[in-house]
């Protein structure tokens, strides 16, 4: 089975600071995120997993190397073009504070379309609202929703534009275990049922176990990969990585 890449990067490096304070966050990463898959990126703190995601998603610019969303190469784009690319072809779920507090849940969900001046496709919107299970809370403000509900709204917002790829940065980081499970199965279902592509950064093996593929990062490089993982094998690999980090 040949799968196209929803997003990919070649020889991506990212260096912060200069001289003494110079930190290499990404040291030449080449990676491809397959369409229709849930990919998890794992690694110890400071391994560069968030930086990788930010660079591929067009939130940050790499020091060198190239990255693509679909066929669009990002380094050539202006700030406005990147913004519109994010609006139309990328979805985001952050760890917390995802929503604009003055907008209601439904307004938050359709915000990317609103910004583009487009109307949502009713059937699609309906499907998403059913998927997140918050039909009766659509007109509530984020302040009136629980953390888990807020994250599901963020998820719906990411799905509404049928993006090339959804990036989730520690989406369960601020949630209890039950809400986490709800959110992760929502992400899983968007891949299985809505044919979306999801890239998720996490440090939680239980979350990564929902993925089709897990990439391990350490010191700015990809150091491993697991296909069809389960929590135990992920945990083993992680322990391995941290041990290595300590001995270095």
């Amino acid at each position, binding site marked *: 089975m040949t799968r196209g890449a929803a997003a990919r990067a070649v020889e991506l490096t990212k260096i912060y600071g200069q001289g003494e304070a110079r930190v290499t966050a990404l040291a030449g990463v080449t990676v491809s995120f397959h369409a229709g898959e849930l990919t998890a990126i794992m690694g110890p703190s400071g391994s560069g997993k968030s930086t990788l995601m930010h660079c591929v998603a067009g*939130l940050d610019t790499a020091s060198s190397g190239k990255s693509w969303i679909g066929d669009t190469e990002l380094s050539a784009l202006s700030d406005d073009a990147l913004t*519109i690319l*994010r609006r139309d072809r990328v979805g985001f779920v952050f760890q917390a*504070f995802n929503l604009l*507090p003055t*907008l209601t849940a439904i307004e938050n969900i359709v915000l990317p379309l609103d910004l583009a001046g487009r109307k949502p496709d009713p059937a699609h919107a309906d499907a998403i609202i059913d998927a997140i299970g918050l039909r009766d809370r659509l007109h509530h403000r984020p302040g009136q929703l629980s953390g888990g509900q807020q994250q599901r709204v963020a998820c719906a917002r990411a799905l509404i534009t049928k993006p090339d790829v959804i990036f989730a940065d520690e989406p369960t980081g601020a949630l209890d275990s039950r809400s986490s499970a709800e959110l992760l199965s929502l992400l899983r279902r968007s891949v299985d049922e809505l044919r979306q592509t999801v890239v998720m950064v996490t440090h939680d093996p239980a979350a990564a176990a929902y993925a089709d593929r897990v990439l391990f990062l350490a010191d700015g490089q990809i150091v491993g990969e697991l296909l069809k993982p389960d929590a135990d094998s992920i945990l083993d690999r992680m322990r391995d990585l941290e041990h290595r980090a300590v001995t270095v």
Partner: protein
Amino acid sequence: MLRAVLRDMRAHPGRMAMTLVAIVLGVGFVVATWVVSDSAAETVSSGSSRSDVAVQVTGEELTPETVSELRALPGVTKAQGVAFGYSALVGKDGKISGYSFPDMGGTAWDSSERFSLVSGRAPATDKEVALEEASASDAGVGVGESARLLNGDGSSRDATVVGIYTYRRLSVDESTPVAAFDPATAKQTLGEKYSWIELTGTDATAIAKAIAGLGLDAKTGVELKADRERAATSEAEFARNFLLAFAGVALLAGMFVIANTFTMLVAQRSRHFALLRAVGARRGQVRRAIIAEAAVLGLIGSTIGAALGVGLGWLAMTLIRTTGETIVFAVSPLAILIGYLVGVVVTVVAAYGSARRGSAIAPVAALRADASLPRRSIVLRTVAGAIFITGGVAAVIATSGTPLSKMERAVGMGGALIAWLGVLFLAPLLASAFLKPLSKVARSATSRLAVRNAIRDPLRTAATASALMIGLALVTSFATVSSSVEEVMTKTVKNDLPAQTLAVQPVQAWFDLPEAVIERVKGMSPKDSVATPVQGGVRVTLPGHELRGQTWTAVEPAAIGTVLTPPIKEGRWDLKGGFAVSTELADEFGLKVGTQLTLHFEEAAPITAPVTGIYPDSYVMRGVVLNKELLPAGLKGYPLGVFVKGGDQSKLTAALADRPDVVVRDRDGLIAAQTEPIRLALGIISALLGAAVVIAVFGVVNTLALSVLERTREIGVFRAVGATRKLVRSSVRWESIVIASYGGVLGIGVGVLLGAVMQHVILTQPIFSLTVPWLLVGGALAGMVVVGVVAALWPARRAARTDVLAAIATA
């Protein structure tokens, strides 16, 4: 603790900048006011003051003989008679220029300290003249050019300007002559009677004593100087109080800005304060720290403000310097001290509320990620606002009848002001009430977001808008009063004069209308097409009453209904059958048609006749109107002008081209001449209130900048999900426009209503017979949109620059 505060302030200079602007402008205004009034007083009493006169002699008949007589007195070294006479400078437009008093417009040049040459030299022949500096610049003539001067008899002559001088007064009530002639010419044109005689000598007191024996009045130079200083001080004090009222308004607007800023700063640092509390700071310590911060800010602001005030004061003095004086610039320590006092007290008082709230935060809040102060309740405000508005409106309604006593006027005005205070209290509630529907109709995501952000914290939006409202409400209310007064004036003039009637009047209202002009116009016009009303003072008696200090107006009976068409309320215009009296007079003394009145003139036989008509407000008529033919011979009265029906304005103007002292006005011209001073006054008041508006605009900038800072994370999310920088900018700009427009609508609404009450109590018109100054209202609303756009420039740019990653990554 204080050190922690100071260090904190030093670390974040930006957030203090806008607060500083409010303090600096307010203090600057106060200090400038003080500097200007001090300098003005000082200028009059010292710099341009004369010291060359030992004694000034005044009296009925002062002639060259009196001068010789005085010169012979022991101790007198020099005696100089000072003569004045009619002379007026004709400007480029062929009319008398400037604001002089032509009757005392010419004088004889002498070598005393009266004159100080600015350029050129003293006049030496009858073809030469020296002119007063301000008048010369008004008329647009300089040294070497030819100037046309009007003589008392209506003739005029040309002379070469050889010198420009500034004039120094000796006594308080002296007017400034515009032209000085050489002594020989002066003797011819002005005559040989002196207004006063100036003596130089060694022992002023002894000389004054000797003069008292001659039946003349004498004042020593020392006494005169004291008089001048007294007058200058009281004038300066009046000006100071006037200006301080406006400075007070600016400071009030500033307080709103400062209070609002501190509220935001404290809210943003609530976690910091909670941390201080958690490590052991007592409530009082936190509160004092915030107050100390305010005091330090007040001190810094006052220092800059005082410097600004001194600069502004100097600028103002330089600009006022048209009277031809040599300016003395005085900065008293009191002025600076008051500036500091005002700056620190205003800042501390404004910050007190937020200091209390900031210190009330629970230490445990330091442990929460989203530490925030509890929302302030608006219940108390709402109740207070409702009570104030109800009470104020009730007071206004209770006094809305038309004849108004002094007490009723005060109650009505007080009620209006209290209701205004109520609106200030209710501003947060009104903000949510008015702006919520707006968020429903807002179409685009950005504008909806902007409106929602604007009502997110109604207290903050209301405080920001209230600062704007204060200045705007006052400007609008004054404009409403002025347009209502203009409307009334226009109406009375239109009532009194048909459109075809022309008026020949002196160039300035306080000039005399020469008899020769009256006769000439009469001679040029058909009989009964001319009215020459005159006025004077008289004592009026009627059965049971004696009315002193009344005015009479005498007019040709034939002119009524043709040349002049004053309305009548009761009875009819029948001057042949008796008097007409004003409604005011009739109401006050219960006069009715048929009441017998007797006019007792000072040096003529009394006239008795019944009242035949009662007339309402009139432009020409005042007091008791009588038949001009019945006016006792020798009683001339003060002419109001010559009114001609059916004349041709350009022909009449051409016929009077040789009279620079009179103008021919048609009805519209007359109305314009009447209303111009009101517009001028309104212009000055609006400019002075402008400071309050400027401060409020900085308040909008401040609120936006701090809000943007607070919402960094939100803006990051907004950007991440696809808002371009342009959209972020436009969302902040819309928010700014919403806040500014809210302040504008509130200010204009309150201003028009306040103006309605003001014109009611001033003009005794019904409240809703006001004239709304639509032009100003429209301009102010448009101006508020501009203010919104301008105020958002910097905050919007900051918001657009928000680093998406930094905003969302810092959890």
